């Protein structure tokens, strides 16, 4: 029986074959969902799906695209936004 704190579904089980031959269960945090566009809901590219401790060690430029609304809107919606603004 695992420890009570490990019985929660907020942790995922990772089966690891240990050097002794038996499989042991490692409990790890789940990754967050993929980042999505705030306008159309498309999956954002260039936004990593990592645990917070890895995101912390990453450079800011590696965490989202280097353009206006990078990491919030997809490139299509961003373009649409700009074009709409200037065509009025």
């Amino acid at each position, binding site marked *: 029986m695992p420890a009570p704190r490990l019985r929660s579904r907020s942790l995922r089980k990772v089966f690891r074959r240990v050097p002794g031959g038996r499989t042991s269960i490692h409990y790890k945090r789940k990754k967050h969902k993929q980042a999505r566009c705030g306008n159309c809901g498309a999956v954002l590219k260039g936004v990593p799906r990592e645990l917070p401790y890895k995101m912390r060690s990453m450079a800011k430029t590696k965490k989202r695209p*280097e*353009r*206006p609304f990078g990491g919030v809107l997809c490139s299509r919606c961003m*373009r649409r936004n700009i*074009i709409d603004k*200037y*065509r009025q």
Partner: protein
Amino acid sequence: MIEIGRVVVKVAGRDAGKKGVIIDILDDKFVLVDGETRRRKANILHIEPLNQVIKIEKNASHEAVAKALEELGIKARQTKPKTQKPKAKRKTPEQLRKLKEEKRKLRDIFKPKKKEEAQGIKETTLEDKAGLAEAKEEKHEHGHKEDKPKEKKTAPKKTTKKKE
């Protein structure tokens, strides 16, 4: 629509949403843009032409573009002048020697006790030797008995400790 002097907005990339002017037409696909944006080649699909046109020469300098855009109330991009950092020069042998000497001095400051102790030991040994020598002399003076000199040997050591 696409001609030299046409004011455009960049729609893609890092400079998206920034205004610029077409300076040169390179190809049926590419143009050269400068202004708020960086001065760079841009795909026609990545720019949105506006209804303003400026009189400007082909391949005009960034300064000329900046002047022309000021009339429209657009501030051209200003790059910081590149300041070259002074390169770290190799230290000459003389400088290295000086550094070593300084390090030695620091060592002396931080390790004073051991040296003092060592000096103290040396002194005691010397004094002991002196005491022994005196004892030997006394032996010769007093006589040939073996018990007395042993006591004398211990005595001078004590005196040395007191001196310290």
